[in-house]
């Protein structure tokens, strides 16, 4: 049975649509719809029980209440610091995996990075609690070594939150870095070395420009994960960790103020979008290229 080109085109489109249908349905039902509803929620205020009217009160509250502001900026800054730290730690790891270790060793190192993810994030965070709490392993060790006289509380510091966040995000940085460093031809490094470059110049002029898409992709993923992380800041930072996701949680669950929570949610979304756009602009890259190449 023969069909006209127009029919064939139509058939191809139908097949494509059917194949994409589950993903599109997922996207629409679980991401687009709830967000539309949340957006509507965030732009209204309750005037009386079961009576709502459109207003910008929720957003105004955010801008007039210094505590909210403070937590918002703090979350953004700490996330940026965590992302930078993750990059600095993950880069040498990715370098060793791709350029130094050979064959099995390289695969083994990669698995070592993966292993922590076999355990749920909650259990891992609880593991950190056991290590770091006042009666935990590390403070006891410090006393034994004579570094401190009494056990110190290592939990509930910003540094603790950062440690947890970096630990949680490491793999998401290592993977894109490994894939972008793998495609770096070793002879480029040798050629630069041969032409008189030292290690720093090679890193700056050859390795980083080549790995830029991987670095950007890793930073975007890690930044988003960190910004939206609830569990790790809450467990390691305690009640005073002042992470923006906690604020959202409080509004929705504790205060039952969904309108305020929705507004905070959108502010967080705006923050992550802005930061990603800024990062791409600064590194002179396009989002589509970064996602394709890494």
């Amino acid at each position, binding site marked *: 049975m023969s069909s006209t080109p127009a029919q064939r085109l139509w058939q191809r489109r139908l097949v494509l649509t059917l194949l994409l249908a589950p993903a599109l349905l997922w996207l629409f039902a679980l991401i687009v719809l709830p967000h539309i509803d949340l957006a509507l929620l965030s732009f209204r205020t309750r005037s009386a029980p079961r009576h709502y009217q459109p207003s910008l009160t929720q957003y105004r509250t955010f801008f007039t209440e210094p505590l909210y502001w403070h937590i918002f900026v703090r979350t953004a800054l700490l996330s940026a610091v965590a992302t930078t730290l993750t990059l600095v730690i993950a880069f040498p790891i990715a370098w060793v995996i791709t350029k130094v270790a050979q064959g099995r060793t390289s695969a083994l190192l990669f698995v070592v990075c993966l292993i922590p993810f076999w355990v749920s994030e909650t259990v891992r965070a609880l593991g950190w609690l056991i290590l770091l709490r006042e009666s935990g392993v590390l403070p006891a060790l410090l006393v034994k070594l004579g570094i401190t006289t009494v056990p110190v509380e290592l939990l509930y510091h910003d540094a603790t939150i950062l440690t947890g966040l970096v630990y949680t995000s490491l793999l998401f940085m290592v993977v894109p870095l490994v894939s972008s460093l793998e495609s770096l031809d070793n002879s*480029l490094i040798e050629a630069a*070395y041969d*032409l*008189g*470059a*030292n290690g720093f110049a090679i890193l700056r002029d050859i390795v980083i*420009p080549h790995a830029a898409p991987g670095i950007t992709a890793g930073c975007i993923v890690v930044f988003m994960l960190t910004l939206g992380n609830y569990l790790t800041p809450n467990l390691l930072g305690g009640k005073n960790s002042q992470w923006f996701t906690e604020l959202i949680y409080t509004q929705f669950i504790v205060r039952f103020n969904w309108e305020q929570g929705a507004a905070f949610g959108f502010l967080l979304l705006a923050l992550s979008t802005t930061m990603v756009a800024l990062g791409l602009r600064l590194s002179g890259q396009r989002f589509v290229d970064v996602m394709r190449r890494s």
Partner: protein
Amino acid sequence: MTTPDLEVDSLVKRFADYSAVDDLSFTVERGSFFSILGPSGCGKTTLLRMIAGFIAPDSGDIRIGGNSMQAVAPNRRPVNMVFQQLALFPMMSVGENVAFGLARRGMAKEERSRRAAAMLERVSLGGAAHKRVDELSGGQRQRVAIARSLVLEPTLLLLDEPLGALDLKLREHMKIELKQLQAAFGTTFVYITHDQSEALVLSDHVAVMNRGRFEQRGTPQDLYYEPATAFVAGFVGANNRIAGHVTGSSGDIAEVATAQGWQVRARKSGAVAPGAAVEAFVRPEVAVLERAAALLPKDHPHHAGAVQSLLFDGANSAVLLTEELSRFEFRVALPQTGRFADLKVGERVFFSFDPARAICFAAADAART
């Protein structure tokens, strides 16, 4: 006498189970084009990478311009390398590629772009400085890679099979260009290749390398006409290799008989005892082809054979014969006159060669290859 640009002294590099470079010593004179020719795995790349400084030798010394290179890092050696895959930096423009080494020396921006532009001009790429590397053709990239090294005015330029990735036509063209560039710059080139034609065409001196050692060093003419070992005879240029044993000898000419009883005569190289197993080598262009035995030179032994296949290749045309007595496959170059243009497969022909221009080696030597 000036110091040689490169002196290699008892250089040794062993890997787990074999010697890549086995007690090698040689010198390369200033301004010469020196090639190291060998099959893959002969150790030539290891040797080149030791000169560049990427691999440390187990023992021995490398002196460049009279200075020992022990404990001198690759980025501090007066040596630059043109890589097999060229290794141009894709993240930089052509001009930035050429200026890269100058920038590393801390030269000011205007000065280095001026020098890079001048160097690109010299390799006929003037005005290409702003282009991206992937906008260039294979031959142009080749020239950028050479310009990038030569702009640093190295004592020695190392070239690691730089023509290997090019197609045949471009390779032929680049051969000529490389030779002209070397003559124009006067820089000492050390070139490694497995392609004997590249080595012969380009070099002032060639070393044939095998199993970590030099089999022979000499001018391309020496290697071609006076091979020192069976390996060189077999590796450099086309050759008919005839294995047999010595049945007699007169002066420096040995009588060699193959296992099938075919008798040929060839000049002895080194000690060739009567009865010893030998390998004789006859170049295709040394043999003379005729349709009648009477037309062949009177003073050389005559052989007969049937045409097995015709290998037409313009000026390099040859014919494969099957020798009558031994069924030995023998290659004869066809004369340029087109006299044998009508040769047919299966036709009976006669050939002979001057025994003085054939050469035989004791087979112990041959067994090593």
